[in-house]
């Protein structure tokens, strides 16, 4: 595997702004992290030299870990960075799932060139069941965002970012107890929504 160069973008000023509560910083920071995450995934892909044994989602996750590991962010803003990266993870994975569904619906006729429309390099498929679940989760999260935006962010951090309760609390400027409580509710609420969506889609 080739060693990836460290990210060229400096996230620190934007992270500091985010830490100060400037939500606008997120709009600038997010595309940067998102692009960087895709770039890392692409580099990894080339590093594998055609080895297709790893699933796409595993690849993205590898990229996420690498990015988190390499991005030179201060300890103070680490949690904020993680939260943004988690959001990017959600976007990439959900786009991938939707792309896959489109391909399936189009019977594979529609050709999507690698690295442009599709967000991530191809690997062995995500199972249909998981594709459906991921799409349903994304839909349900959109609904949740309109009802309780904070809960949706907690899900991004906990689920897509694998962040601890404490890290999530720090990134979202709230208490661990609140994160725990909302996470418990949001997870159950989302699951109920997803089940409805999947049932609807099947019907």
């Amino acid at each position, binding site marked *: 595997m080739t060693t990836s160069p460290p990210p060229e973008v400096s996230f620190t000023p934007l992270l500091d702004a985010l830490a100060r509560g400037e939500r606008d910083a997120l709009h600038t920071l997010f595309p940067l992290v998102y692009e960087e995450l895709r770039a890392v995934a692409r580099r990894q892909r080339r590093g594998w030299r055609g080895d297709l044994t790893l*699933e796409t*989602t*595993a690849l*993205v*996750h590898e990229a996420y870990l690498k990015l988190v590991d390499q991005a030179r962010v201060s300890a103070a803003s680490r949690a904020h960075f993680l939260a943004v990266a988690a959001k990017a*993870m959600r976007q990439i*994975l959900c786009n991938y799932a939707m792309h896959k569904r489109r391909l399936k619906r189009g019977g594979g006729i529609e050709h999507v060139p690698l690295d442009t429309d599709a967000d991530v390099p191809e690997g062995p498929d*995500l*199972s249909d069941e*998981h594709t459906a*679940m*991921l799409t349903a*989760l994304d839909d349900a999260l959109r609904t949740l965002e309109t*009802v*309780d935006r*904070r*809960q949706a962010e907690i899900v991004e951090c*906990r*689920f*897509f970012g*694998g*962040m*601890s*309760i404490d890290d999530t609390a720090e990134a979202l400027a709230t208490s*661990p107890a609140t994160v*725990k*409580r*909302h*996470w*418990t*509710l949001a*997870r*159950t*609420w*989302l*699951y*109920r929504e997803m*089940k409805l969506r999947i049932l609807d889609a099947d019907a």
Partner: protein
Amino acid sequence: MTVHDRDRLSMLFESALSRPAAERDLYLDEACSGDATLRRELASLLAAHTSAAEHFDALAASLHLAPPDDEQLVEALRAALAGTYRIERELGGGGMSRVFLAEEIALGRRVVIKTVPRETSAAVNLERFRREIAVIAQLQHPHIVPLLTANAGGQLLFYTMPYVAGESLRVKLAASGPLAVSEALAIWRDVLDALAHAHASAVVHRDVKPANILISGRNAIVADFGIARAIELSASPTNATITGPIGTPAYMAPEQANPHDPIDHRADIYSAGLVMYEMLAGRTPFRAATAREYITAHATQTPEPLPDRDIPPRVAELVMRCLAKEPEARPASANAILAELDDAPSAHGHRRLRRWMLAAAALTGVSVAMYAFRSNRAVPATSRSTRHVVADSVRQWYQRGKAEQHRRTREGSSVAMRLLERAVAADSEFANAWAAIALTAQFASIRGWHVNGRSPDSLVALAVRASRRAVDLDSTSVEAWTAAGKVAGTIDLEDRASALFALRRAIALDSNFAEAWFEFGLAEEEALDPKEAEHAWLRAAALDPANVQVLAFLAFHCLWYDDFAQGQRWADSAVALSPSYFLARDAAAYIAIARGQAATAARHAEAELRVGGHEPLIPPSILATAAIGQADTARATRFARQAESLVVNTSRPSKHEVSYLAAALAAVGDTSRAIRWLTAYSPRGDLHFQLHLKRDPGLRWIARVQPALLTPEPGTSR
């Protein structure tokens, strides 16, 4: 819904979740106070909660996302361990369990803490789990990772073991693929050695797989011995959470797929064969990917032959024989495989001897709870009985003695004791005669009988001595271990683990010995595990359909669990086989009372009176209880008084008699006298007495009236 509403919703949801499931409805009623929409929403969320957690974890795993740490679990674990262990870090889990590296604060040593998945631990009876673990914790062997403790904190169940530096065979195989034949053989020998030792102690691993084999230096050490079985045995019978087979599908013997099939050490032989196959081939012998496919493959697919490499044909043949679908077709034991390997030419000729010395060294100084087993732990498993030839005349005394003992009467015990003592006087190395003496003495002592001038107390002492001698003389005698189990259960009533340990060992030596199954059932029933007890007694009845004691206990079992129709069938069979057997009559009588057939009950009591002499308080107690069933209070009171007056004339009524007397007194309405009698016979120190108090239909009121009597007194022995 506003954010404020969401806050309220999340608070109510968290609060409802923190309550026991049974109280949640009531809580919602109060908390929602008339807000029907809110209540509906919460009820719907509560219903979805468990599946939600599982699906999120599963989805995260399938997407290769690290599932968010279950902080609650870690916090609960930290709280439960506070002061004893300090968690250093998580080592990663196998399946649903989590594994942590921790420091044992008092000793400054590193230990590994494993948690049992929450869904599973909810179904587990902690006391029972601890007892099972206590049995496993006695395993001491250089190739077994010993268990240190098992405990619970809140809903969390965990156990600890020493930290072994090194990697698992799973990791090793993933990194290096197939191993050199010599290395695979060395690892296999270690694993088999560990299995042989555990099997000799009646512990079956049930989850032998590369992930449970640790490679440390040049040794392979097997971890998680018997945990799967301990969880299964301690799962509450009413809780259906643990329904599927326990084990890892890829390494599970065909018979393990059916939870109702009896599993013995040969399941481990199969799994050990799979492990060796994988070490040699770098893959499993079946083409399967999912759990279901594996289970089908184990049952139906012929394993693919080992690859054509430098594997000695005898080794290859041995591995394939381990993979036989039928347990009978596999090598009989781990020791048998080791013996065959030793016969095969190899560079490890002297290893076995060194192993034995290591094992013996590991055992020195180990405190073993069971008095009887100290001396023979290091004795190789060769049968003395095969070497020790018993003279025909001595054998006849022994057999006649056993027959007398089987009459289960005072006279029978007396004659049996004389014959058996004659047998051991002529041949002091006759293990089974000593075992029979132990059983006879034990039987008489708990009934308070004097036998040939021996008091009940001296009979207990004799039972202990004789059972110890039997096991010392022949550690492969199933009768010796059965007697040891029976006696261990008598001398320390609190300690079912020792009794179960010895009885399991007996069953492992000969699973067709009905007496061992019977005693095992009794020990399980006293440990309040009716499912296991019934299973054992049914086994005993199938092996020895004419054993009236087994039939009588099956009848009692049905009486205790309110299956009166089936209970009557068992009791009737027992009475038909042996009309003079008092326990059969007792069971039949109390079942008749429970079914409202007072006249039948009286008939059984009168028949028992005619035979006479066994437990004299019981017939009048039955007659009193039956008379109440016929609304004849005067007659009932007369019999109850008669029973009570007999206590004065009996040197030492058995606890059975006292419990039936109490039932009779309660039936005639004199609960305070009933309680006085029960209290006088210290039920808190006697699990068998406890069993009657908790299960006899005539005594269940105790739980309401005098619950303190039902709390066992820890550490009491008789």
